[in-house]
């Protein structure tokens, strides 16, 4: 009991300090709502998270789910293409040399710079946003998976040689489990990027989504809702990351 108290105390104090500073700042600038007002607004907002009043006016629950869905699809496609590609790049030096300049060139491009291309090609906001997620989150998955394949200790490959294992056995018993921790790191990095990008992309494209909702509330000058959106985005991002951390722990064998 004492231990739980000890470990909860510092973060709780940090949170209280943060809220305190927020309240102080809110007092001195009249346009910024304080924590109390924001909390009241949040309670009201979350009391009916799944209402539907029209195609662009839906409950916050629907907004969050819509964003998560886009992230899921874009991220899923990035994983489905990025991870196998990473494996092959790691395994075959020629492919590595071939793709290295392209990856180096495209990786530092800001996700939002990809948006106009997406809108041009897909002519609709939803697929364009998914495209931006895809192209932004694919790089960590390719690079980390390839790095994992490169870092497989030669010892394991020697075992495979001495046992004369078939290619399939090498893949399932050695290659895949050895690369898994690196893959999961890549996935963790990707999910962070993806969630970051979706909010910005939705601000620019509109529709249903948490990013769009932020922009809409700004247009309505509902500052409390913008602040709430910040918390929501942060909390959902945190939960996604934590889920992957737990997954990573499950598969680490140190």
């Amino acid at each position, binding site marked *: 009991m004492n231990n739980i108290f000890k470990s909860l105390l510092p973060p709780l104090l940090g949170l209280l300090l943060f809220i305190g500073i927020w309240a102080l700042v809110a007092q001195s600038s009249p346009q910024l709502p304080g924590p109390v007002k924001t909390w009241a607004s949040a309670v009201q907002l979350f009391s009916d998270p799944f209402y539907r009043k029209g195609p662009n006016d839906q409950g916050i629950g629907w907004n969050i789910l819509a964003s998560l869905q886009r992230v899921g699809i874009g991220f899923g496609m990035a994983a489905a293409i990025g991870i196998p590609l990473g494996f092959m790049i790691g395994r075959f030096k020629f492919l590595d040399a071939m793709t290295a300049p392209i990856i180096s060139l495209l990786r530092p491009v800001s996700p939002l710079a990809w948006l106009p291309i997406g809108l041009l090609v897909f002519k609709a906001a939803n697929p364009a946003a998914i495209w931006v997620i895809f192209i932004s989150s694919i790089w960590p998955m390719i690079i980390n998976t390839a790095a994992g394949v490169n870092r497989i200790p030669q010892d394991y490959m020697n075992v495979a*040689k*001495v*046992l004369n294992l078939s290619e399939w056995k090498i893949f399932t*018993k*050695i290659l895949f489990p050895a690369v898994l921790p690196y893959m999961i790191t890549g996935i963790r990095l990707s999910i962070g990027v993806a969630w970051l990008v979706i909010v910005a992309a939705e601000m620019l494209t509109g529709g249903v989504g948490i990013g769009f909702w932020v922009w809409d509330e700004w247009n309505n000058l509902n500052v409390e809702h913008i602040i709430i959106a910040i918390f929501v985005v942060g909390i959902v991002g945190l939960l996604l990351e934590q889920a992957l951390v737990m997954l990573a722990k499950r598969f680490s064998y140190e």
Partner: protein
Amino acid sequence: MEKYVQVENVQMLFDTKKGPFVALRDIDLTIAQGEFVTLIGHSGCGKSTLLNLVAGLTLPSSGAMLCAGREIVGPGPERGVVFQNHSLLPWLTCFENVHLAVERVFGQTENRSALKKRTHEALALVGLTHAEHKHPHEISGGMKQRVGIARALSMQPKVLLMDEPFGALDALTRAHLQDELMKIAQATHSTVVMVTHDVDEAVLLSDRIVMLTNGPAATIGEILHVTLERPRNRLALANNPQYHEYRGAVLEFLYHKMKS
């Protein structure tokens, strides 16, 4: 002498940026079935290279290598290797690590329960039945090395190749495993080729000690026949003058006759 492993006029060259590097030259060695041979020499003299050649993990630049009359063209389960780093797969349990080898060698001809039985027996041979369902990170270094030995033995190899298998262990564990290895080798009539740099280990375990000269271009300097009676007891040998003679001979070679 019955020829089980034959190394004939073997030379090993490596291409490096500075030109060809001759690791081994003029290696002629014959090993009989059931023999326990150690390769000893200073660091960098090519003893691991020679072991890798017998294992088939590398192919010689010139010369012939034969095992049981057939040319060695690559690695395989009939030349089982125990690595210096145990090389156990960390995501498999000890049982599964050994089972991987058993399945590879006997999977086509035997059913599942027979394979399981082999795996249990191999682990029992090294005294690790109680650790079967543990993962490598849950057991000690000595135990990991024993699993490595169990894995190699479970394949019933023609030759057991060991690359400084006890190098990473403390003296007590090493002594214990050396005794166990002698017992197992005798019980299974295995042919063993072991790389070591420990003189006492070489004299205690071997039937013959192959002493390599210093690298580069190392070759076989001397071969010592150790005719101490088996089973060998290290405590008794401490008072055996012949043991000390052998020991002296090896040390003399290593420290005085290094150059070819």
